[in-house]
């Protein structure tokens, strides 16, 4: 039994992740867990930068545009994975992490007996919801399964 978990901290260069998932699917693959890490607000750094000049309502308009767009992208990516799962006769499970908790993610991996973790991460404090000083040490090293990190830098 082979279970793949895709953890998306970012939508940057998403096609690389999709390609990796398709490559990793074999006859033993039974489940794909598509997990999004997405806050309900935009990152603080960006919010404070814009807040210097913009009035509350204009800032909210900008923030809503960003959030709306990111949730739309989430839907598009989900649809893409639904098609992949259907094509390979695999079960697709969706999970949204609204706030970051290393333990929670680890528990999820354990509970669902995930074998392979694919992470997409963009180190960018202006539009990433979660920014690690070192994602390998702070997050990935604590997870003792096969994993692949797609890390995009600013």
């Amino acid at each position, binding site marked *: 039994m082979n279970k793949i978990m895709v953890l998306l901290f970012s939508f940057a260069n998403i096609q690389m992740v999709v390609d990796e998932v398709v490559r990793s699917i074999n006859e033993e693959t039974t489940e794909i867990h598509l997990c999004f890490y997405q806050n309900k607000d935009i990152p603080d750094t960006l919010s404070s*930068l814009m807040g210097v*000049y*913009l009035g509350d309502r204009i800032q909210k308009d900008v923030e809503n545009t960003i959030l709306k767009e990111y949730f739309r992208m989430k839907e598009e990516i989900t649809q893409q994975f639904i098609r992949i799962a259907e094509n390979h006769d695999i079960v697709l499970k969706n999970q949204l992490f609204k706030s970051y908790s290393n333990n929670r993610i680890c528990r999820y991996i354990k509970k669902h007996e995930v074998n392979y973790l694919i992470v997409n991460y963009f180190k960018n404090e202006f539009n990433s919801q979660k920014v690690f000083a070192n994602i390998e040490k702070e997050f990935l090293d604590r997870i003792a399964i096969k994993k692949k990190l797609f890390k995009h830098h600013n």
Partner: protein
Amino acid sequence: MKKINFSNIILILGMIIFISMLIIPTPQGLTLEGKNAIAIFVLCLSLWVTNYLPLAITSILGIALIPLLGVLSAAETFSIFGNRAVFFILGSLIIAAAIYQTGIAKRVSYLFISKIDNSFNKIIFSIIVSSYLLSLIMPEHAVAAILFPIVFELVKSLKLTPLESNFAKAAFLALAWGAVVGGITTFLGGARNILAVGLLQNTYGISINFIEWLQYSIIYSLPLLFISYYIIIYYFNTKVSNIQQRLSYISKQYEKLGPVKREEKILAILFLIIIFFWMFLSNYIDISVTAILGGVSVFVFKIISWDEIESYVNWGIILMYGGAIVIATSLTSTGAAEWMSNSVFEILPNSTFIILVVVILITKLLTEGVSNVAAVAIILPIAYSMGDILNFNPVIITYIVSLTGGLAFCLPMGAPPNAIAFSSGYLELREVIKVGLVLNLISMVLLYIIAVRIWPLLGLELFI
């Protein structure tokens, strides 16, 4: 190894210099008031750079410290805050809020972008030009906020993906750079322009009116707009199939806006009248008075309500600009700026070329890292004093510092349109820094050539 936090280092250094300046004996050639003015200046500089306090709060801290440390009397300090530039900004922010509220700017942008042809170059051109033109009549940050959802819709309809798509990168960069370049062209695009003119008046009693500013700034901003456009299409050149079909979505969005509303029509007429007064009647009616009356008129015609104004305008900007003008004026009026520039000349040779390059370069470096208002307020007083030694025309110094101070092309913290463009998630910082540095370099060379060769031909002499 623990990462060094440069913000904390700058802040601590600022504090140490502030306290040291207050304790040490007054250096030769400097008055006690001047010494304390420099201490306040350094403290505010460190706070502006690090953002330890909100920018507006740093400004009012400066206003409080100036009378407290005996730099200027309380009456003088507060009267400088009441500068006409501050009231111009106040009026223009209210008018800009009305433009935002009615949706007239959005309509014009949709119209412009929906009429474009089916090529990458033309789409990018339409975005950068829309952004530039709107920034001539309203603050650049509001322009970026208006165009942001439109560019997002464009990107969405073309099915472009974050970081991968050169088309999307070009579109968001065109949005930011168009607003930044447009923002230096009039008093309305960037309030730092009127702040610089206010400082010129406080220091030399010389005034620059709306049309004078425009006639010299546009000679610079217009070529810069085209250079920005060519840099974007050169670096991010790409192709997207079925553009025309996909862009029909934008046309539909424009149609959805429906017929022009009554408020939009009234605002358009009012705005044309205000612009006419600013451009042709400023010798009779001060531009600040026109701005305030314009602000009042949008209420009279019920285009916007007070509640809406409160939600659209960040009043902290007024404090920020007012504080910046007070701190900068305290440096010139106490002789502190002159003392600092004399110190600079002990290191640098008395050369026109070197002084201009140093002023442009330092302003540019500063404006990429801190608010451009702060950059102008920090550099201008010292640049005036340096210019005095070489008999530079202070009007040219005002243009050079203000125009350079408005042009941050690389970093999100340099200009609000950059921050908004970066928030899309489509831009990569390293890439933007790379192309932004090229544009920064060209913009500095172009400004030098225009200041030395072109402006004198139009009557703006380099020396007095």
